């Protein structure tokens, strides 16, 4: 049951016919895992907390660096040196004490991801490297867990929602990670600060729609965004019968780390 204060707090949700009291309760009962507490993870964490998503997990081993603050809006200047998950939790709980924030101050890997993902209804990829993006895809597909893929660089971003078994997964369009020497990093290539705000809020919207069971998810289509041209484009994507994880003869049946794909945005610390 919602308290009077909660009815007031979520009143602009509750008056939406797609949400209502029942939908707000679904959000309260919802569990969303955010992997990465950086550029994408920051707006995702703040909006999910504000929306009253009851349990939010956030995973990141990193600490806040001065060069993060131009885009990672969950972290403030006073947080430099503080674990990102702790910094994010502080802002989320300050914004909305109703939510439970579970922090995982560790890098996700083949040895821990399945266990972490198992506790959640929906997963959001806010990571900055291909090793993690492929691992999240494989873990979610093997566990049948819906998730939102997101990626950014310079002025461009892309996102797609994956419903394992129903819609194409990341490996359907991108079967294996690129060699690490080919990967441009944010520290080398740069990223405009507002870019993760645009992509992250789309990813958060998908999590909220999934919990509500309303609308159409961004499945079977890759949404691309160009900040410079201020254009969104949508590219239809089909499941690949040859996909190594969700195709007809999958070769990936257990989780392995893609050791060849380095961190993209954190090379300054490597």
């Amino acid at each position: 049951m919602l308290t009077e204060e909660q009815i007031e707090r979520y009143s602009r949700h509750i008056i939406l016919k797609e949400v209502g009291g029942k939908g707000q309760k679904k959000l309260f009962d919802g569990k969303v895992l955010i992997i990465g507490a950086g550029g994408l993870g920051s707006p995702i964490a703040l909006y999910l907390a504000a929306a009253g998503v009851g349990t939010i997990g956030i995973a990141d081993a990193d600490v806040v660096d001065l060069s993060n603050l131009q885009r990672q809006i969950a972290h403030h200047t006073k947080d430099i040196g503080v674990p990102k998950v702790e910094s994010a939790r502080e802002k989320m709980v300050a914004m909305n004490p109703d939510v439970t924030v579970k922090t995982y101050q560790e890098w996700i890997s083949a040895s821990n991801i399945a266990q972490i993902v198992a506790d959640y209804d929906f997963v959001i990829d806010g990571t900055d490297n291909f090793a993690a993006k492929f691992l999240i895809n494989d873990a979610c597909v093997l566990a049948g867990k819906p998730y939102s893929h997101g990626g950014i660089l310079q002025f461009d971003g892309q996102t797609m929602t994956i419903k394992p078994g129903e819609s194409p997964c990341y490996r359907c369009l991108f079967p294996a990670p690129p060699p690490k020497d080919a990967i441009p990093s944010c520290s080398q290539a740069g990223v405009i600060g507002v870019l993760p705000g645009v992509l992250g809020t789309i990813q958060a919207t998908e999590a909220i729609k999934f919990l509500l069971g309303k609308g159409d998810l961004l499945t079977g289509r890759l949404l691309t965004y160009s900040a410079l041209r201020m254009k969104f484009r949508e590219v239809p994507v089909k499941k690949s019968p040859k996909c190594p994880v969700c195709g007809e003869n999958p070769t990936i049946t257990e989780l392995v780390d893609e050791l060849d794909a380095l961190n993209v945005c954190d090379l300054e610390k490597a």
Partner: protein
Amino acid sequence: MQITVKLFATFREGRFSVEGREYPEGTRIAVILSELNIPEQQIGMIMVNARHAEPDQELHDGDTLAIFPLVGGG
């Protein structure tokens, strides 16, 4: 044959966004990548008619080829 070539993100710089282009029947994707001066190691995804494709795939009249760079930051 007519191929619709769509370029994304940084691949558009100095090139184009979407173009209908003429190629001989059976042209492989790698030929188009080379013509457009797109190094294979910079490529994230290649799709033909909404499905993943590899550079050695042959194209057919009316195909839509979409080429994306690596976008892996967060």
